[in-house]
């Protein structure tokens, strides 16, 4: 089960409003390569993982992604909390504002609500871990895009932290996949992988 700590994994203190930037960043809240997608994917995949290493890693990284979800939500909220309706109207955030005000709703940057179709749980540990490697790179790529359009150093600072975590997760999943593929018992578990 989960325990909640009343702190962010990384501080978020945004001085300036920027609804346009919020519109882009909300994609990492409810978009296909965002933190909700990541946490749901890993926390769901862990049930069908074959050994303690994979069960532990997916639980731990899935939990960290929930902490990142909270960070992204905080960024979005701080960017719009004190924004004037003028600012909001003059950005693409205006369309999101109609149904969500200055609230944080899980959607991608085009307004498509979160859809679990963006995650896969195949029940096959090799397929699932391979999906996880791709997921981390996609998330990293989106953070790269956000850094390209952000001119706010308070925002960019947090985004760089989140981006770096995706790279570390990629490294850990790679180790897990590598170890799994070299585990004789697992080769029997995954028919087709070096099956005799």
């Amino acid at each position, binding site marked *: 089960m989960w*325990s909640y700590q*009343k*702190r962010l994994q*990384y*501080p*978020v203190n945004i001085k300036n409003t920027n609804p346009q930037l919020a519109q882009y960043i909300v994609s990492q809240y409810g978009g296909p390569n965002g933190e909700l997608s990541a946490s749901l994917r890993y926390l769901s995949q862990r049930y069908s993982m074959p050994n303690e*290493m994979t069960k532990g890693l997916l639980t731990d990284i899935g939990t*960290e992604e929930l902490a990142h979800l909270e960070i992204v939500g905080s960024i979005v909220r*701080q960017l719009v909390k004190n924004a004037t309706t003028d600012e909001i109207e003059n950005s693409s955030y205006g369309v999101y504002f109609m149904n969500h005000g200055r609230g944080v709703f899980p959607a991608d940057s085009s307004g498509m609500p979160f859809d679990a179709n963006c995650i896969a749980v195949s029940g096959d540990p090799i397929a699932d871990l391979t999906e996880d490697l791709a997921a981390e790179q996609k998330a990293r790529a989106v953070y790269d895009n956000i850094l390209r359009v952000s001119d706010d150093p308070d925002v960019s600072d947090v985004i760089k932290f989140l981006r770096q975590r995706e790279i*570390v997760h990629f490294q850990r999943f790679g180790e897990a996949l590598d170890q799994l593929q070299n585990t004789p018992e697992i080769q029997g578990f995954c028919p087709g992988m070096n099956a005799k």
Partner: protein
Amino acid sequence: MSDRANLMKKISAYAFAAYDWNLYLDTHPNDTDAIAMFHKMADKASALKKEYEDKYGPLTAEASQDMERWNWLDCPWPWEKY
């Protein structure tokens, strides 16, 4: 930076370091040096959290100590600026 923000920053740093060792150990469970580092970081984080909680209130609901008022509810919440 206020004392509160400063203390929180240190907690974040040590807790994060411990957590990163946690992830590393998930794929390297027999690395005793890493286990030692994990504990070093985690112990420091725990001590700082206790100091923070004594001054500013609980970081988890279970850690609430105030018998007159349920101070778990106190603002600021993490998504608000300090």
